[in-house]
């Protein structure tokens, strides 16, 4: 049973560019959340997707957008990259009927903006 998978694992972009990160949730999970984790910090909530709709959003600008597909996989898009967007981006999934606070995280996509 594959867990949460994310791609790419590492990438380097320059300021002003755009990036797309991808996530496949754990088998049987239908809810996907994205978190940003700066070095030495705890993860910060970006948004959550369920039934292909954004259900809740954290304090992130509109440059951060997402999508969920019918197979429950998800993408995170960041436009007009800034140096401060350099971080580990984590995808987490959850299934119905599971422990509410038990999210399954992927290993993340590490983005470096130069």
């Amino acid at each position, binding site marked *: 049973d594959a867990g*949460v998978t994310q791609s790419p694992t590492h990438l380097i972009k320059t300021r002003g560019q755009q990036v797309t990160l991808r996530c496949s949730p754990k088998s049987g999970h239908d*809810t996907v*959340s994205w*978190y940003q984790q700066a070095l*030495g*910090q*705890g*993860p*910060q*909530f970006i948004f*959550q997707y*369920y039934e292909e709709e954004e*259900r*809740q959003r*954290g304090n992130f600008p509109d440059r951060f957008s997402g999508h969920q597909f019918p197979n429950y996989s998800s993408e995170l898009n960041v436009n007009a990259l800034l140096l401060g967007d350099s971080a580990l981006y*984590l995808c*987490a999934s*959850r299934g119905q009927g599971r*422990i*509410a*606070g*038990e*999210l*399954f*995280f*992927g*290993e*993340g996509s590490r983005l470096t903006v130069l």
Partner: protein
Amino acid sequence: GESVGLHLPTLSVQEGDNSIINCAYSNSASDYFIWYKQESGKGPQFIIDIRSNMDKRQGQRVTVLLNKTVKHLSLQIAATQPGDSAVYFCAENIEIQGAQKLVFGQGTRLTINP
């Protein structure tokens, strides 16, 4: 407001000893907390959760204590092993209209000395 914090950024214990990791929160209305473990190069992993109607909850080698009076929770790990070396995060689960987000603290790095 939404805020969880950690008392110490690092903790070092001898293998076999017990460890205690502390966390404070600010919102007296907070009612659901979770502890996550993040090993190097991996995403956070669920350890244990506790709701505000409980003072204590036990798992395998772990115990979480919640003191609502002083808005403090702790994670106790018994008989620590090398595999317990990781960063530990407390998180508050916030649910709004069925959508959920976790608010993480900054984390405590636990090092187990042989």
